[in-house]
């Protein structure tokens, strides 16, 4: 491309410089006939552009034919022969029109050797001329041929340039100095080539860069991929996390459900235990049928209630236990009441016995009274007093807390006796009872009479100087004196009494 650019550059330069080239051409015609001839030779091919196209094709064919004969010969020899062949071809151009065209090129080449033979600096000029010869195709461009023709010309220019390059290398091979210059040129070319190579290298570099870019792109892509992977990994991680979390949640929910089940199971156990305790609680089963927690709570409450009911059941048992001692206590009370009744029954018997003995005494006294009545009336009065006193004697040994009442009753009985003395019928009744008593208790009466006669109720010994009180209770005088100095009441009946009121029983003593 660069080459084409350069050629275009030169072509443009020459196009802009058409007039000076024309003048130059005239000058050249004046200076060099050969050049004019060349131009004349150039004029004939212009009318035949189609032929030029044919020539181009033929040139290609020739170039292809030339390598074929060179192959059987050695390399160095091939080069020399190729040079010679090219010379021959130049010579042969006159024979054929196609060959002529090739010979034209060859003609240019023989012109160069004579210039070289002249002088070395001229050889430099020859190099320049070579450059001009390169420019001559541009002269061909001056022709008024149409642009397509110019295009067709351009393509041969490139080919000619390549052919010119190869001859240049050949020329360098021929001459050392030229070779040096050529080497320089070659170096330049090489440099150009190097440049080209550099360009290529640059291209390569570009390619490399591209590759690098590609690599970078790949890296970027890989990074992107990695990033994508990261995102995906992150997503996966998040997904995993979410999944694990969800799993954990599920596990938690499962555990909670287990807990729920456990909660359910526990009440069931308690319920079964309650069943064990209370087999008749069917309502709790109905409550247990409900799955709600509240119902479970109710179940728990019911359990508490059942426990309370159990406690209540225990309380009644305790109450029953307490009732049993109540029954016992009631039984004891029932037992106590018979005892009270028994005691009551016993006490009347005691009172009866007390009543019987006074009756017997009274009867005995009545018999004595009968005897006395037969003798003397005043002696009767005294005897009556004596009888009363003896009655008091009879009272004393049996006295106790109860006796305090009985003496009063006994006092009433003597009055009755007096009334009975007046009534004969009454005497008969007393005698009847006295007989019965005498028959039952003869000995006891006698003994009691003796005891009663002998003993003082205070000192529990025989009477010493007995005195009797207004209430007809007899005690020793000294006993009366000591007691009445403390309390002015009879020790037997607690009636008010004074020592002055007491009288001695001297008559009784005299009677005794």
């Amino acid at each position, binding site marked *: 491309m660069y080459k084409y650019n350069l050629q275009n550059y030169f072509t443009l330069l020459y196009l802009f410089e058409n007039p000076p080239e024309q003048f130059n051409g005239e000058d050249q015609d004046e200076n060099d006939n050969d050049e004019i001839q060349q131009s004349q030779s150039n004029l004939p091919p212009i009318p035949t552009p189609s032929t030029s196209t044919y020539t181009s094709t033929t040139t290609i064919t020739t170039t292809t034919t030339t390598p074929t004969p060179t192959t059987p010969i050695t390399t160095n020899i091939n080069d020399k022969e190729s040079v010679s062949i090219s010379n021959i071809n130049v010579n042969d151009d006159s024979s054929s029109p196609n060959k002529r065209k090739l010979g034209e090129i060859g003609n240019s080449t023989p012109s160069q050797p004579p210039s070289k033979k002249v002088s070395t600096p001229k050889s430099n000029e020859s190099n320049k001329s070579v450059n001009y010869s390169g420019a001559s195709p541009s002269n061909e461009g001056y022709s008024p041929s149409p642009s397509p023709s110019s295009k067709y010309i351009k393509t041969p220019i490139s080919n000619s340039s390549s052919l010119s390059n190869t001859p240049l290398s050949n020329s360098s091979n021929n001459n050392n100095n030229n070779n040096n210059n050529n080497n320089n040129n070659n170096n330049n070319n090489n440099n150009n080539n190097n440049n080209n190579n550099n360009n290529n290298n640059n291209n390569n570099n570009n390619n490399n860069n591209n590759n690098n870019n590609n690599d970078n792109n790949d890296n970027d892509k890989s990074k992107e991929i990695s990033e994508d992977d990261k995102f995906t990994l992150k997503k996966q991680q998040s997904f995993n996390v979410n999944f694990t979390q969800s799993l954990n949640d599920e596990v938690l929910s499962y555990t909670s459900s287990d807990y729920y089940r456990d909660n359910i199971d526990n009440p069931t156990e308690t319920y079964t235990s309650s069943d064990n305790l209370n087999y008749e609680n069917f309502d709790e089963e109905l409550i247990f049928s409900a799955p709600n927690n509240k119902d479970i709570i109710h179940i728990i409450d019911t359990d508490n209630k059942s426990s309370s009911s159990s406690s209540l059941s225990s309380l009644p048992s305790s109450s029953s236990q307490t009732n049993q001692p109540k029954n016992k*206590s009631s039984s004891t009370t029932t037992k*106590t009441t018979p*005892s009270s009744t028994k005691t009551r029954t016993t006490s009347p018997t005691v009172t009866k016995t007390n009543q019987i003995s006074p009756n017997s005494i009274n009867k005995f006294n009545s018999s004595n009274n009968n005897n006395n009545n037969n003798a003397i009336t005043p002696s009767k009065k005294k005897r009556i007093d004596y009888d009363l006193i003896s009655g008091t004697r009879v009272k004393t040994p049996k006295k106790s*807390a109860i006796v305090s009442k009985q003496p009063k009753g006994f006092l009433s009985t003597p009055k009755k006796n007096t009334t009975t003395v007046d009534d004969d019928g009454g005497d008969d009744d007393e005698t009847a009872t006295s007989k019965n008593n005498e028959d039952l208790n003869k000995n006891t009466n006698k003994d009691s009479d003796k005891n009663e006669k002998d003993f003082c109720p205070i000192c*529990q*010994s025989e009477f010493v100087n007995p005195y009797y009180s207004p209430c007809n209770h007899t005690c020793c005088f000294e006993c009366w004196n*000591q007691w009445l100095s403390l309390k002015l009441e009879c020790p037997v009946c607690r009636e008010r009494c004074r020592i002055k009121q007491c009288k001695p029983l001297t008559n009784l003593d005299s009677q005794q």
Partner: protein
Amino acid sequence: MSTAARRRLMRDFKRLQSDPPAGISGAPLENNILMWQAVIFGPDDSIWEGATFKLSLQFSEEYPNDAPTVKFLSKMFHPNVYADGSICLDILQNQWSPIYDIAAILTSIQSLLCDPNPNSPANSESARLFRENKREYNRKVKEIVEQSWSS
């Protein structure tokens, strides 16, 4: 034997030996006739059944014109018995009479067990229980009865 009290106590002792009432027994100490110890049994067919209570009787030279001092030596729970065992009984105080002998005194105390007088309380707790909580009163009495066995 020189005094009337001693003569009286000897006669009471003879009589108690010859004709003892039911559930009563007593005797003077060996060295002192004025100091007696007696034992009374709880009345039959009562909450005091089976109990045995020991008592002490201290007589003075004025006996029988002066009442003796009687005390429970056993632990006692009764409305008319003080914590120290003293007995609040009318015949031993203002209603004393010289015709009472030892048998009469002990019989009176025995009957007092079944017929307490809460109006003149010597033991306020027992008197209160006797009035308000007969069950508890009976329980305490049983407890005392059981304790009297060991004493």
